[in-house]
């Protein structure tokens, strides 16, 4: 069975010191599914996303990404951490887009996009440059390849960041509040790129406060609070008729 582009979680727990940030998280993300994660700040949304990319490690529970245990291999008695090399390999299949873009300021837009394929995968420079051009065009930024991040607006930087992640040909894309650091008028251009991507069948997990995007694009929705998933279901269904009181309270405030 092909399990590329899936995320499977059972009983995921995570704490920072004595503070529990994730408790008993179950996840079932199908290939090509667009899942939006919403909830108040500090609810563990970002941490959950970061676990799926290995920026944080899970304390307990099962986490399978693309059908493989992520960051660990299983034996009879324990999960053992993978070597850095194997972890890096798994990570290349999961793209991450950050709230603060995190483009490398010392590289041009094109070099940022080429960094992954050339430096990590050892791709041919010429082909990678060609691919970078195509990706820039696909996020509506052809001709911006030689611009440095400091010369681009926030929306443009975020679109380059999306292209940079896509350059690794990931099976899953994670978006951690991708539009929260943008001017309101630049939010649309980034969401448009994401919608585009969704239509192409990419599995996407999106932590967002953009309820409009969730309603329009998402298949499923998770509402998190205090480290647990409080409510889940079809995105439009949950947004229209939230069942849990906590979800109702939250949606009343943000909608």
């Amino acid at each position, binding site marked *: 069975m092909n399990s590329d582009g899936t995320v499977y979680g059972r009983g995921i727990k995570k704490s920072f010191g004595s503070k529990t940030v994730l408790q008993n998280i179950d996840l079932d993300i199908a290939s090509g599914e667009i899942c939006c994660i919403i909830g108040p700040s500090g609810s563990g949304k970002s941490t959950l996303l970061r676990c799926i990319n290995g920026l944080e490690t899970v304390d307990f529970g099962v986490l399978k990404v693309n059908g493989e245990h992520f960051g660990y291999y299983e034996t009879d008695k324990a999960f053992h951490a993978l070597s850095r090399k194997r972890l890096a*390999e798994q*990570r290349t299949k999961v793209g*991450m887009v950050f709230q603060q873009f995190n483009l*490398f300021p010392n590289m041009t837009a094109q070099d940022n996009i080429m960094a*992954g394929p050339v430096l990590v995968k050892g791709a041919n420079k010429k082909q990678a440059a060609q691919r970078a051009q195509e990706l820039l065009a696909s996020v509506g930024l052809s001709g911006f390849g030689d611009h440095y991040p400091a010369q681009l607006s926030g*929306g*443009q930087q975020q679109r380059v960041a999306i292209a940079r*992640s896509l350059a690794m040909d990931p099976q899953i894309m994670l978006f951690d509040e991708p539009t929260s650091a943008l001017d309101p008028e630049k939010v649309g251009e980034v969401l448009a790129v994401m919608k585009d991507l969704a239509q192409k069948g990419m599995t996407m997990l999106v932590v967002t406060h953009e309820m409009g995007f969730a309603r329009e694009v998402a298949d499923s929705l998770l509402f998190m609070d205090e480290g647990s998933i409080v409510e889940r279901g079809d995105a439009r269904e949950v947004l229209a008729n939230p069942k849990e009181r906590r979800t109702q309270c939250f949606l009343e405030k943000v909608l």
Partner: protein
Amino acid sequence: MAQLITKGIDPPMDGMDPALKPRLRRRSVFEYASWVVCILVTLGILASVITNPNFQWDVVAKYFTHESILRGLVLTIVLTVVSMGLGTLLGLILAIMRSSTIKPIAAMSGLYITFFRGTPVLVQLIFWFNIAALYPNLSIAGTSIDVNALITPLTAAVIGLTLNEAAYMAEIIRGGFSSVGKGQIEAADSLGMSAGMKMRKVIIPQAMPSIIPATGNQLIGMFKETSLVSVLGVAELLQSAQLIYARTCETIPLLIVASLWYLVMTLLLSYPQSRLEARYSRSTSRLPRKAKTVVQSQEGGR
């Protein structure tokens, strides 16, 4: 009431447009007083320096470009460059070790830095010069080396200065590393970059703006610090001057010669240093060199 207002806008007495009158800074009495004192003191010192025959300015002039002084100057420059170069390299290694997640490696580097920054350079130099007393014979891969022959004053000087400088450079470089945002490291991680790749392509290039100006300062400091190795009998600038005045007893003029050279070299290094600092301190618009223009928000495609 009306009278008061007209009083306020009396026609200008000298006919000058009040809108164009310069606004003068208020000067306090202390400002004038300090000018007077400063000028008097300077003149006094100058008069004494010129009229006191013991300064022997003719001797200063005679030795300023004396062959052995110039040779000493060259050696000082070589010592500075070599120790600084090796020290920076070792410092980089120490800084990388210090930021390692493997505890013993970080601790070893920390111990080194504490030790070499916590003891005087002069003591370290004398220590390295006498290292043969601790280890008379070093055997590496079966071949025995006579440490006494290996440690000449010059090698002791280079070792001492390098090891000391490495500790300071390690801290500077580590400071530069920590100025690179956490997000940058996470972005590199999420692309699957290895630790070495991350260091070379992401961390070091971005740490440079804070490392380079500080390194310039260290270089200037190192230039003066080399005078310490005169105690080992290395014929650098100060020692060359000392060798001459030991013979001729013209102590003060020769110390002036050495000081003038140190001053000249320091000033020569300060200019590029201040330029470097200015270039890298523009942190608000930290653009890479090749980028000339800032396009704040150009409507891109779409």
